[in-house]
């Protein structure tokens, strides 16, 4: 099976500060892979290195569907089919829900049938967004904004979806809904790279996981095994 994404010995620096000390990971077709780790472990850095939003790769390679993408401009990486759903959501607060979603389809022909179908798909997935179609993005609740950010990423019709902390600042019941949606999105075959502080929720939906600590991968296993792993349970889930 060919990997959708393959990272080989990636080093990343913010100026003088080394954030990643040579990490390697891969995502196969249709997989949900999660990156676990505390604050400052390098999870978000890994995502921004992949999408090219910050420059700082000092060594190593990133391959997307067999093609080397490090050094490529971020808008081109987005165009190749990597959608990055940002931490803190970053929706367009003054634009309406529908306008936000249509911005997601920026690189596609807005009048095509496919885009209309995808809009329907997003509205089916999150009926709440359909109800608030004309409302300004900034007036939505946190959970709705997360749905919007997810929906906007889906409108890119990506081949890989990267989610950064989708549960951040949301009530448990809302988190449940978001993760149900993530599961459903993945069932359509879309591979997902998930960064999440809520380790339990992440491992519930993921196939595999990598554990990051201060910029290095210290472990990787199937989600099932990680859920049982003593170290993980103690370090990240506060369980004995």
């Amino acid at each position, binding site marked *: 099976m060919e990997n959708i994404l393959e990272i080989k010995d990636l080093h990343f620096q913010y100026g003088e500060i080394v954030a990643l000390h040579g990490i390697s990971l891969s995502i196969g077709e249709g997989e949900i892979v999660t990156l676990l780790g505390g604050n400052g472990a390098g999870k978000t850095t890994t995502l921004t290195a992949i*999408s090219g*939003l910050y420059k700082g790769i000092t060594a190593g390679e990133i391959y997307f569907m067999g093609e080397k993408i490090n050094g490529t*401009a*971020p*808008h*081109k990486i*987005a*165009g190749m089919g990597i*959608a*990055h759903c*940002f931490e803190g959501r*970053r*929706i*367009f*607060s*003054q*634009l309406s829900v529908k306008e936000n979603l*249509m*911005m*997601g389809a*920026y*690189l596609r022909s*807005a009048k095509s049938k496919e885009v209309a179908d995808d809009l329907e798909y997003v509205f089916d997935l999150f009926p709440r967004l359909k109800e608030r179609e004309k409302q300004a993005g900034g007036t939505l609740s946190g959970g709705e904004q997360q749905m919007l950010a997810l929906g*906007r990423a889906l409108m*890119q019709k990506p081949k890989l979806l990267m989610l950064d902390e989708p549960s951040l600042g949301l009530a448990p019941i809302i988190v449940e809904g978001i993760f149900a949606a993530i599961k459903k999105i993945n069932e359509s075959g879309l591979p997902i790279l998930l960064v999440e502080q809520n380790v339990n929720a992440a491992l519930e939906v993921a196939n595999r996981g990598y554990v990051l600590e201060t910029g290095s991968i210290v472990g990787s296993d199937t989600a099932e095994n990680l859920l049982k792993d003593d170290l993980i349970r103690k370090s990240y889930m506060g369980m004995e």
Partner: protein
Amino acid sequence: MKAFISKNKWTLLLLIAATALMLVLAQKTYYALIIALFGIYAIVATSLDVLFGYTGQISLGHAGLFAIGAYSSALLTIKFGVPSLLSLVLGSAITALIGALIAIPASKLVKHFLSLLMIAFGQIIYLIINSWTEVTGGSLGIMNIPYLNVFGFEVNSNLKGAIVIWVILAIVLLVKHRIIRSRVGNAFIAIRENTVAARGLGIDVQKYKVLAFAVSAAMTGLAGGLYAFLRGFISPETFNGTQSVLFMTMLLFGGITTLAGPVIGAIVLLLFKEVFQTFSTYQGLIYALFMLLVLFFFPNGIIGLYKSGKTAVMKLLSKRAEATRNGGAENAEN
């Protein structure tokens, strides 16, 4: 086109009424001059809206671009004998090119860094036109600029100037509307709203920021050329830093991201300037007061004030109508 007309019917009606009124007033040549200047400044304020209102890039150096348009159009005609209409177009193109060049470094800056760069740009242009005496005439400026000639129609009076300029303003507004409604406009708005997200959605942020600068500069350069041909005389004082502040004040006062806002802002501020001509020493102070007034009391400008007022009235009316309906229903039941 139909949708455009129905959506902007009040703006258009207002425009037609204003045009009629102005045509009457313009019988006096002084009024005609003021009306022509309204149009010129409205083009500049509109160009700033493309840059600041839609793309979120601030410029306090547009007087520099205005100067480039004015001087290059005038010099092309006087020194090289280029027909005036062609000079006007070339002047606009030269300004667009210089705008794009300055945008390449400028587009990497945001907020106060960008505004400082643009202030510096305005100052540099001001210095150049002041001291490059052999070409620009230095502080004396350029005199005897010929009339604009539009396909044989010589614009040799302020009244004719006013008409031509307002027609050009209408074209500029239409172009702006077209750009904003297009994919390019979407990219501009996405960049203003959230640059990182825009990049993540596949928008080439740098390219569109430079494009916004070029479009804005082209419009301002065009206005500069019109100014030169209208007045027949230009000198550095028209293009100093205060002028850049005036342009920005016009936009903020009128209201950003609307068609009518910059036009109204330009008219109000210019009227103000004419009425209080005697206080010219304090002009900078007055603009600053205007800007504070806008920022504190109606941050969305006159147009924003009008819109929120309209929404409030509509709400009140619909409430009243509902109350009457409910009252009526109750009465019927009784």
